[in-house]
């Protein structure tokens, strides 16, 4: 595991496992079979959509639409997007205008082509989009969609996300795209730390809470309807719930002591750290706040639980029971505690949607004379094999998987302040999502 060459190979295996077997299969198989590094990416051309009406608003909306669609496809991690400079001079706006041989041969040499049109009429916008398999001359159409909405930039961005997710779903092995997903995070840009939200690509950032206390550790429920977080109250840190159905805080029991780091199970239970009995230990409670039970004991401190998002049968957590914090797993009833990390300072685990991997922040060499840095790692839970995702880029922490299992969002101090970034789960394609104030602890929606 410590051998660099082997580590490089295992990176390939694990990423291959990620991209091919995100839904099923086992990483052990891939490590044993040792097949190729990663997956051949689909070579996709995405031509700018064309105006279908003479409305002068089309120009701005087309730019918003085309930029958003391109960015979504580029972010997906499963395409090799053909540069627009290779495209024919006449791009199609509808099927009758497609010349397959202009796309399926050099220079574009595309396998797939996304194209379409957009038009505003009486403040309503209509978008038509197609996906063509340009190497299949017999029946090239893979997808044809039509969208109608208000003629606003906001609506057009959503349409672009929806169309991108259709393409990603068809070409990405049946895994839903993430273009319509949300990220919740902590921002201090208004003074106190409050919970904020944004689209997965960093657009549309706005505050959810206005409590005026310190609020931390936002975790969105699997169905997206409730946001759990931890906030300072008169009696201590308590778990709080915000309802997106009601657009307000909803009541949740106050347990006393320090109640920190909530985590939703797939079926809607909450695990969290509580010192109500003395030391911080992991507790579980129903989504309604009832049926509280303790899972760990001892001085700990035990904190940052994260459920196996696929099975709900295991919980990973952080404990300082042996000194510096390490990542552990246990069954959901608290039995069979296993230590996963063997050294350093390991915190902030997050379990992948397919149940196979943990990503966490690790300072592997920690202590006097060991100027390590906080980097993000990915570990195959069954084998405890790991790969390093970030390198030489300051303090990185609080990683969280995207719903498609292909991306990780995290906080990094690499620019000199804490900001939120996303990347592919192999550490590539890093994108900065926030720029204003200090932003931490991102949490990606489940879908």
């Amino acid at each position, binding site marked *: 595991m410590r051998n660099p060459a082997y580590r490089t190979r295992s990176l390939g295996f694990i990423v291959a496992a990620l991209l091919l077997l995100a839904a099923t299969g086992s990483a052990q198989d891939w490590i044993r079979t040792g097949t190729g590094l990663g997956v051949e990416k689909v070579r996709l051309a995405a031509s700018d959509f064309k105006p279908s009406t003479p409305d002068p608003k089309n120009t701005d909306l087309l730019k918003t639409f085309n930029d958003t669609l391109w960015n979504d496809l580029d972010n997906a991690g499963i395409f090799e997007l053909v540069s627009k400079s290779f495209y024919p001079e006449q791009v199609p706006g509808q099927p009758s205008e497609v010349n397959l041989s202009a796309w399926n041969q050099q220079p574009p040499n595309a396998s797939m082509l996304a194209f379409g049109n957009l038009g505003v009429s009486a403040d309503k916008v209509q978008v038509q989009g197609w996906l063509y398999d340009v190497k299949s001359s017999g029946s090239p159409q893979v997808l044809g969609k039509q969208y109608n909405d208000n003629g606003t930039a906001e609506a057009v961005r959503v349409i672009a996300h929806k169309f991108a997710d259709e393409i990603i779903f068809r070409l990405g092995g049946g895994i839903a795209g993430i273009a319509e997903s949300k990220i919740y995070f902590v921002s201090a840009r208004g003074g106190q730390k409050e919970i904020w939200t944004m689209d997965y690509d960093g657009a549309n950032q706005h505050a959810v809470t206005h409590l005026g206390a310190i609020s931390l550790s936002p975790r969105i429920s699997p169905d997206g309807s409730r946001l759990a977080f931890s906030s300072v109250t008169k009696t201590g840190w308590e778990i709080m719930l915000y309802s997106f159905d009601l657009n307000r805080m909803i009541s949740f029991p106050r347990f006393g002591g320090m109640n920190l780091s909530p985590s939703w199970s797939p079926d809607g239970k909450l695990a969290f750290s509580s010192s109500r009995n003395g030391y911080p230990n992991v507790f579980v409670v129903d989504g309604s706040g009832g049926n509280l039970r303790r899972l760990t004991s001892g001085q700990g*401190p035990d904190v940052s639980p994260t459920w196996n998002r696929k099975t709900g049968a295991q919980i990973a957590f*952080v404990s300082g029971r042996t000194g510096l914090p390490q990542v552990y797993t246990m069954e959901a009833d608290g039995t069979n505690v296993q230590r996963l990390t063997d050294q350093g300072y390991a915190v902030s685990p997050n379990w992948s949607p397919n149940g196979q991997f943990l990503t966490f922040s690790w300072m592997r060499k920690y202590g006097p004379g060991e100027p390590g840095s906080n980097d993000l790692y990915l570990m195959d839970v069954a084998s405890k094999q790991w790969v390093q995702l970030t390198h030489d880029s300051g303090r990185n922490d609080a990683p969280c998987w995207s719903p498609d299992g292909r991306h990780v969002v995290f906080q990094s101090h690499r620019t000199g302040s804490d900001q939120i970034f996303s990347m592919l789960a192999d550490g590539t394609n890093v994108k900065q999502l926030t720029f204003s104030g200090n932003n931490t602890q991102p949490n990606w929606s489940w879908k």
Partner: protein
Amino acid sequence: MKHPIKKWITLVFVLGAILMLGACKKKVAPPPPPPPPALASPTASLSANPNTVDKGQATTLSWQTTNATDISIDGIGTVEASGSRQVTPADSTTYHLTAKGTGGTQDATARVTVNAPPPPPPPPPSLTEEQLFAQNVKDIYFDYDKADIRADQQADLQADAQFLQQHPNIRITVEGHCDERGSTEYNLALGTNRSDAVKNALIQAGVGGDRIKTFSYGKEKPFCTESNDSCWQQNRRGHFIYEK
């Protein structure tokens, strides 16, 4: 026009003549009386030793006179021709001796400086319990990633416990704080253990546990915001908050 001028000249001349006549008259005043018979004049000296005393201390006045028949010192009265006397002036005093004789009168003075006592210390302002708390209760510092009370913190902790026992009405919150390294959530949990460690040590030392609340700020409210060892040490602490 000519007539008034002639009149002015005449007036000036007459006035000048009167003045000259007056002056001549003084020169012919009678001769001074003869000097008095040559009698011996008195002499006098007065000294104080020491000439500087603290308030309440005595000093010795010494004097000598000659050719004097009537000798007195202000505030003391008539004295012999030569002598000494202990005095204890309440304030700085200039003693004044007058020696009178047939040959005249002679004065002598001696100054005794009395140092005022140092002003008494101002009465201690009556401090509130909260002020006493702030002056006396010291925060407890921790090692990196540790939540046990260090040996070098035991003295402060015992002193804190003693103060709290002497002021049984004071209620406190112990806040656990951590340095900036590591995760937000783990530091909140670590700070919880630090505040508990301080609370438990105070209970061990005899302070009632029901007077002590705990809270953890993790790394959310640092006392010092630089990224170096001394700053980190400042931030790893159990911080005492006065509640009542």
